[in-house]
């Protein structure tokens, strides 16, 4: 009696997949993503490490040279210049975050046509970096550029023009990069401001908070997610700065505006570059710098998830 009941209850034997469906399915969905991530990201990372140990012109036989490429980097002054410029980019590019916040606070009001103003401020992010680079090249032009004329009125002169002056050139390009980046941060903060809790603002107002105190203790803490994203995209943007340099100066004058990504391109892939191993070594250094930030981002995201649980 009992036996028959049990077998009835089990019914016909189900397949292995059916039995484990709930546990397995998430992994099945992950497979395509993991596969392409491995092929297009993880594998090339290790491949770059590997190539950086060789002397290779990209055409013939590669010759194993150990860490020689890295040793050469230590004495390479062009590399040193690029590294310093990368640092300038990292620090100054972060100005986009407070600037974006200011503009978004300014635009976060209800007046006629505010949508138009918002889109005008957002405009530089929509146009291509190439166009931004060209516009700023004309702006800085040593003979007819508006910038040159304007600083001329107050008696200043930058020898060779901003883009022709070895000291000023990197700052000039960063300023051009800040234009679209500020717009990007602005849009992040505008969406963040929509999510600010009006009841908290109300309560703070009743307690007598206003102006800077309101901003610092009530608004900004609520904008933390937006700030985090703005920080991530700005850091990554600073390290990826390539298009502007390529279009505005090509790393010049005499290599003073290069950054690591552009130097890598020049050494390995440009018209005169045939040093794949050396280029790969530069790429590895750039990767390690990025890794510091990536590790930090992952760690703080992990902490956040843990806190949310």
């Amino acid at each position, binding site marked *: 009696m009992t036996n028959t009941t049990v077998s009835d209850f089990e019914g016909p034997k189900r397949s292995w997949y059916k039995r484990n469906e709930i546990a397995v399915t998430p992994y099945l969905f992950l497979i395509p993503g993991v596969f392409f991530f491995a092929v297009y990201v993880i594998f090339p990372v290790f491949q770059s490490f590997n190539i950086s140990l060789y002397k290779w012109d990209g*055409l013939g036989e590669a010759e194993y040279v150990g860490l020689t490429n890295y040793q050469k980097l230590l004495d390479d002054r062009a590399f040193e210049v690029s590294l310093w410029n990368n640092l300038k980019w990292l620090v100054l590019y972060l100005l986009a975050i407070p600037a974006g916040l200011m503009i978004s606070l300014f635009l976060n009001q209800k007046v006629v046509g505010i949508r138009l103003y918002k889109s005008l401020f957002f405009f530089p992010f929509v146009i291509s970096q190439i166009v931004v680079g060209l516009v700023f090249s004309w702006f800085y032009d040593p003979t007819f550029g508006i910038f040159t004329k304007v600083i001329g009125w107050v008696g200043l002169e930058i020898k060779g023009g901003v883009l022709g002056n070895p000291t000023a050139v990197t700052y000039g390009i960063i300023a051009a990069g800040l234009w679209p980046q500020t717009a990007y941060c602005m849009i992040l903060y505008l969406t963040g401001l929509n999510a600010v809790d009006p009841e908290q603002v109300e309560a703070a107002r009743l307690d007598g908070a206003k102006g800077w105190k309101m901003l610092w203790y009530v608004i900004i803490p609520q904008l933390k997610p937006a700030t985090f994203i703005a920080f991530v995209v700005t850091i990554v943007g600073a390290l990826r700065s390539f298009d502007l340099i390529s279009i505005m100066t090509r790393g*010049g004058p*005499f290599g003073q505006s290069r950054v690591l990504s552009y130097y890598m391109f020049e050494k390995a892939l440009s018209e*005169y570059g*045939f040093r794949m191993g050396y280029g790969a070594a530069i790429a590895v250094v750039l990767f390690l710098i990025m890794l510091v930030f990536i590790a930090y981002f992952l760690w703080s995201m992990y902490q956040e998830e843990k806190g949310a649980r």
Partner: protein
Amino acid sequence: MHSIIKTSFAAIVAAGITATSAQADAHALSGDLVIFSDMSNPAPRAVMEGMVERFGEMHPELNIELTVIDREAYKTQIRNFLTADAPDVANWYAANRMLPYVEAGLFEDVSDMWEGQMSEELASTKGAMTIDGKQYGVPYTYYQWGVYYRKDLMEQFGLSEPTTWEEEKANCQTYLDNGIKCYTIGTKFLWTAGGWFDYLNMRTNGYDYHAALTAGQEKWDSEKTRATFANWRELIDMGAFIDNHQTYSWQEAMPFMVNGEAASYLMGNFSVAAFREGGLDDSKLDFYQFPEITAGIPKGEDAPTDTFHIPSGAKNKENAKAFLEFVVSADNQTLINNGENLGQLPVNALSSVDDDKFLNEGFAMLSNDAPGGIAQFFDRDAPAEMAAVAMEGFQEFMLFPDNLDDILARLDAAAVDIYAE
């Protein structure tokens, strides 16, 4: 005597033409021919398409596929397509510029084509196509470099074409006294400064030294190279070059001369078309050979040669060779280099030069006034990496001549690595 040579000359030409056409009839080609070309500017593109059309008419059975790639993009793409999916014919440049591809075994040895007649007809560029005694391609055009100047300005100040360094500097001083810069130049893309170095070094130390230097057999920090830079510095200290040249491309530097703010431009003959478009006709634009600096040194000249090659991975090599033979034939070279097409000089000695003031002067100069030798250009004679480092140094020198010691030390350090192989 003279007439005898002339007659036999004509006979050879006639024989050559009949031989070529007979050959063409005998081997009517069939199958495919894939051509990748970097002749993407309007005039060169029309020339390339014209050549394909005419070659196609000679061989109606042949299926020709032409792909024209942007000239700048081509320089990096060639690495990919030579190794991955090679065409049957590809454009490139002579001398050291083709060395990496020859060493990697990516260009076919075409020495058999060069045997006999072709070596005579193309003698002037045979050296530039030769690596280790073998030839790896054929030339289709070359052009002279020299000083293009505003004839009307020169006449206005009562000057004449300089032939010595002293005259050159005296002329320059006159221009400067009248508020005109002597030379326009745009060094944003660096190579224009390479042209100045080529000429100053060839005139100061001679072609042989220049060739040895670019081949890595001489030190950069040497008495001789320093003498070259000292001559260059004389001009820089005079303020002979336009200001802010580091922010201009070579085209962006042209308006200075067109507007009369600068008197001359050391450039290749390809600039003539742009000058004419800018409104300088032959009464305002003229040309002179870069003057002598060290007396008695045979003059060398820059004459970059553009070429066709057969990649080793080509599938239709016989067809490709037939096309290369067609390209170098005297008739074709006369046609494609005339003023309506490329406006440059034909390489084949039996071709005729179009009736153009600058082409004639250039042809005469390269044929008669360049006993020192013909160089390709700095970035084609020196290995690519060396050229990149050195031209950057030239630009720095033009802006900060005091950095010379540092620049030379850096170039020598780079050379140790680059020429080590």
